[in-house]
């Protein structure tokens, strides 16, 4: 089984973001970066699938500036066999532009499965995987919370409001991963050492044309500071009064 996983390098979200002077991007000064959450789940799922199959290997691809190689190295140290860096100083917001470059790289890779996160945690669009699937004319199953590959076909579950959908699909396929399959493993020391010797190919990204642009980014209005109204059950009557008269939700 040969699997490719597309991973994006994103800022860690545990900060108060600032807006860059252009007004069209987040100020990147001082941010810490890591693999996007759902992409981490996808890498873990890919490793488990190849381990279970006892054959084949997982590859990772990331598009972005040179620093994405750190993220690719992390995937290599988790156990991925090979990494490809599609070099581009800009990472456009438009998922199609990114998908064109990814699809060009994936096209002749002979992959049984091409995996994505269900959405990037910064862009939060969930579009790239659909564009890649269409460009490669492959079936796509979006937001899998469980996934099995058996006898040359796949089955998955997707979460929907109030339940789930059981899906079956043919291979080769594109799948995007929701939380629920597996938490990403931490790279072991041995993994980190061996990652240094694993292949990391660097190629120029062939970005597609752009139809969707960012005009402006803003911070949402801050919430009013929290307020503690009292302690224990004694505070309940005051809470109910506030819910009725001030918040008017009761």
């Amino acid at each position: 089984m040969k699997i490719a996983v597309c991973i994006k390098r994103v800022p860690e979200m545990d900060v108060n973001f600032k807006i860059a002077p252009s007004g069209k991007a987040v100020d990147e000064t001082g941010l810490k970066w890591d693999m996007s959450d759902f992409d981490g789940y996808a890498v873990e799922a890919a490793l488990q699938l190849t381990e279970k199959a006892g054959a084949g290997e997982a590859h990772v691809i990331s598009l972005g500036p040179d620093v994405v190689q750190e993220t690719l190295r992390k995937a290599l140290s988790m156990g991925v066999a090979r990494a490809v860096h599609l070099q581009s100083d800009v990472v456009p917001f438009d998922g199609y532009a990114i998908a064109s470059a990814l699809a060009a790289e994936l096209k002749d890779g002979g992959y049984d499965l091409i995996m994505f996160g269900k959405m990037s945690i910064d862009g939060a669009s969930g579009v790239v995987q659909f564009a890649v699937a269409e460009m490669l004319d492959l079936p796509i199953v979006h937001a899998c919370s469980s996934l099995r590959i058996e006898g040359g076909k796949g089955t998955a579950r997707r979460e929907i409001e109030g339940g789930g959908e059981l899906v079956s699909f043919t291979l080769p396929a594109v799948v995007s991963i929701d939380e629920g399959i597996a938490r990403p493993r931490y790279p072991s020391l041995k993994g980190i050492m061996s990652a240094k010797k694993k292949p990391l190919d660097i190629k120029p990204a062939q970005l597609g044309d752009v139809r969707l642009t960012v005009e402006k980014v803003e911070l949402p209005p801050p919430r009013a500071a929290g307020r503690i109204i009292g302690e224990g059950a004694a505070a309940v009557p005051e809470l109910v009064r506030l819910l009725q008269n001030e918040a008017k939700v009761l």
Partner: protein
Amino acid sequence: MPNVLAFAEARGGELRKVAFEAVTAARQLADDVGGEVHAILVGPAGTGGKAAALAEFGADVIVVSEHAGFANYAPEATAALVAERVKGGDYRAVVFSASAQGKDLAPRTAAKLRSAIATDVTSFSLSGDALVVTHPGYTGKVMHTLKLVGSPAMLSLRAGAITTVRKAGAGRVESVAPTADPGAGRVTVTETVLGDSKKLDLGEAPIIVSGGRGLKAAENFKLVEDLAAAFGNAAVGATRAVTDEGWRPHSDQIGQTGRLVSPDLYVAVGISGAIQHLAGMRTAKCIVAINKDKEAPIFKVADYGIVGDAFEVVPALTAAVKQAKQSTH
């Protein structure tokens, strides 16, 4: 004259609330360009009976496609049908819902037509030759204003982002056959597993009562269930600590890697308020927190916080809510 197309989501032959939101949004856009609203409705035999309800919210044409294979969501056949309709008409924009289904259908359809698409949109307007929308990113910490060029522009609308408006449309019904067999396809939904259908969905409930690890055991969720029942119009949510323990299903999880919700009232019980949890509920209109630790970060975002033991405060609150509900009736 360009028109606007809306996808009206139905499940089990019933329209979902988001269907009316999509049609309302399409009506607003169509009024801007002076065109008509066309709504697409797919489902098993009998679904077409719901067409009139869409007309009440402004649909001029309801394109109905009934097929036994549409009983479950048929991703490829549904996208093919919408794409075919778009190709055959003059559409300025296509509105989907950013529901579980719409998050699949909207980008799937857009990819087939190579249309510009913005997902999980919270506001939208036409401005000259562009569709301009707001799209939250960075776990809701940054709002993007995006510009989509080309026609049709596609968007999926976040549930609850707009209020539905009744406005009669012409309501002409057109029946069409599926363009691809909904039962075949490379991707097929073999079963839709639904929990208790009387339960309100987290995305639609005006009130959410959520429990965290502070509740200590699955059976103690009875406390939040009872409080939700006292409110009447409430759903129950949970943190990842809780879904990890298996006390509640993953579908109840609210946060960065769970559901994103913005109810009128969010009651957090025994929840510390980790950044990843806040990412899913920070936009609630009113937040109440009940936690025994007065330093818990949840109190930084809570409009009303009570420091105390959930096992004492929640039953008292449940009784008080019941009483308040009775006296207002």
